[in-house]
């Protein structure tokens, strides 16, 4: 909606100012429409429709027409302990993946920025998790975690550390086990982003700091980190959102089990919508997810941007 009005305004008011700058003028709509229409029809539209659905009793495969039921779905959600449990699991998962992911990626990025011999190998390997379909990542780690034929238990047995267990099926081990996979899968992308940020920091600053006798930690704090902060913040915020909303990895690893211990909000909503056909209710879940994420993110970004240079 806003985009549509924006089109009108910008095509009407712009030509004089833009002329002679080599920029597009009156014909901008012609360049913009091909992308704008699909975005409006297949993304913005469904989103608004989805929010509307949250206020209805829409179900799949029902003959009776859909009724507007106001905030009833949200009222039900409020009392749905299973949903809030999955929400809690989603937050634990998102934080549990995002934080180690960032720290490990930062470490690796700093290493790769140094002049080390095996650097090329690490860079090449970092591509693998990034390029892999999430389904394959899930499958692969199922093989690693396999209670009998898995490499993890075998290694533990070799080291004399117990007889191994069924990591993905254990009530207390399932969530940590999938978190490890999440960290593994998202680390490369974070590393590359941070590495790109590192290579943007001026070398001379480092050298000057080193000449002044600053140790590694001081150089990191006074030179590296300030330059890296904008990239680090952006990628952390994005990672948190992506992780909170993730689906395929855990779906393949545990399908939300055992006993719902790894049932992320997306898995819960998916089951509600496409197994039980509760479209309206699932849409309400989606709305709550967006709302909470937005609030958390606003708090995070507001807190971090204050007092520092902006992204």
């Amino acid at each position, binding site marked *: 909606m806003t*985009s549509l*009005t*924006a*089109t009108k*305004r*910008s095509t009407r008011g*712009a030509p004089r100012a833009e002329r002679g*700058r*080599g920029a*597009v003028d009156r*014909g*901008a709509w012609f*360049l913009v429409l*091909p*992308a704008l229409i*699909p*975005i409006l029809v*297949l*993304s913005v*539209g469904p*989103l608004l429709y*989805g*929010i509307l*659905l949250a206020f209805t009793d*829409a179900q799949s495969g029902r003959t009776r027409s859909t009724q507007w039921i106001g905030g009833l779905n949200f009222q039900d959600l409020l009392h749905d302990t299973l949903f809030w449990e999955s929400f809690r699991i989603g937050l634990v998962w998102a934080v549990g993946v995002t934080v180690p992911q960032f720290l490990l990626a930062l470490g690796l990025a700093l290493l790769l920025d*140094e002049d*080390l*011999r095996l*650097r090329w190998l690490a860079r090449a390997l970092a*591509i*693998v998790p*990034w*390029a*892999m*379909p*999430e*389904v*394959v990542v899930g*499958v*692969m*780690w*199922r*093989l690693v975690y396999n209670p009998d034929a898995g*490499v993890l238990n*075998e290694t533990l047995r070799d080291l004399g550390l117990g007889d191994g267990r069924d990591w993905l099926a254990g009530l207390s081990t399932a969530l940590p086990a999938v978190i490890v996979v999440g960290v*593994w899968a998202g*680390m490369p992308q974070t590393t*590359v982003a941070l590495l*790109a940020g590192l290579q*943007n920091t001026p070398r001379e600053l480092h050298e000057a700091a080193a000449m002044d006798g600053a140790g590694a930690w001081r150089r990191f704090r006074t030179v590296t980190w300030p330059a890296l902060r904008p990239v680090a913040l952006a990628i952390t915020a994005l990672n948190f959102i*992506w992780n909170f*909303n993730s689906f*395929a990895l855990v779906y393949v690893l545990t399908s939300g089990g055992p006993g719902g211990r790894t049932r992320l909000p*997306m898995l819960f*909503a998916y089951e509600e919508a496409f197994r039980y056909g509760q*479209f309206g209710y699932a849409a309400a*879940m*989606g709305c709550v997810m967006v709302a909470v994420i*937005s609030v958390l*993110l606003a708090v995070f970004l507001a807190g971090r941007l204050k007092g520092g240079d902006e992204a």
Partner: protein
Amino acid sequence: MRTSTTGRVGQYAALLAYLVFLAFPFLWLLSVAFKSPRELGSLHPTWIPRDPTLDNFRQAFDEQPLLRAAGNSLLAALGAALIAVLIATPLAYVMARRRSLLARAATGWVVVSQAFPLVLVIIPLFLVLKNLRLIDSLFGLVLLYVVWALPFALWMLVGYVRAVPEELEQAAAVDGAGRLRTLVSVTAPLLAPGIVATALFAFITAWNEFFFALVLLKTPEKQTLPVVLTHFIGAEGVADLGPLAAAAFLATLPSLVVFALIQRRITSGMLAGAVKS
């Protein structure tokens, strides 16, 4: 920069730990894929298969329609990549060259679209596509993939456009070339490598996608590779490990190859898009 010897040793130890962490699941996947059923059944698995075999690959093709699934994936990914780039490039150009409300709105959408859980979009789309009889159709899936790949495609492309000096276009304009002419003969050739990289990235994204495909495609004949892969895992979570690993490995190869080819460009694209001019 000078680093002490102990510092170096520590760095190499850390790097080695990273290498192991990154590599070992993938090596294990390879190992399982080439193991004989007898070896897979043994209680003490080995890293390197004692008598490597291709049986798992054969069996994987027997058990599930992998070729057809790969064909479906290829079709969906190619279609998505082509359409996404075709429609994204002009918009990215406007976003990069103009600070209009529209450009800002598009940029806002790129960012905001990352925050929405897919379930909020897929339910209404499911209903709409059902009415259009596009459920269970690859074409419907391609449409979704286009929109799904757009934010990142725009992000990358905006960066590539900004990398083309505006002065070049102005020079062409001074020489009397029209806007369209300038775009086609000056800007487009310089953008071409970036456009190819973006298309390949959209291809990988679609090739790897699972959620939309899972929800939309019900008939086995139409399902894409990631969905078919999950059929190897039984309802009770019991899986035939060898063929599962073999199929998983095959499903990864295309995106791995493509990714290796364009990795540098993706990285620079990410960065270029991230750095505001």
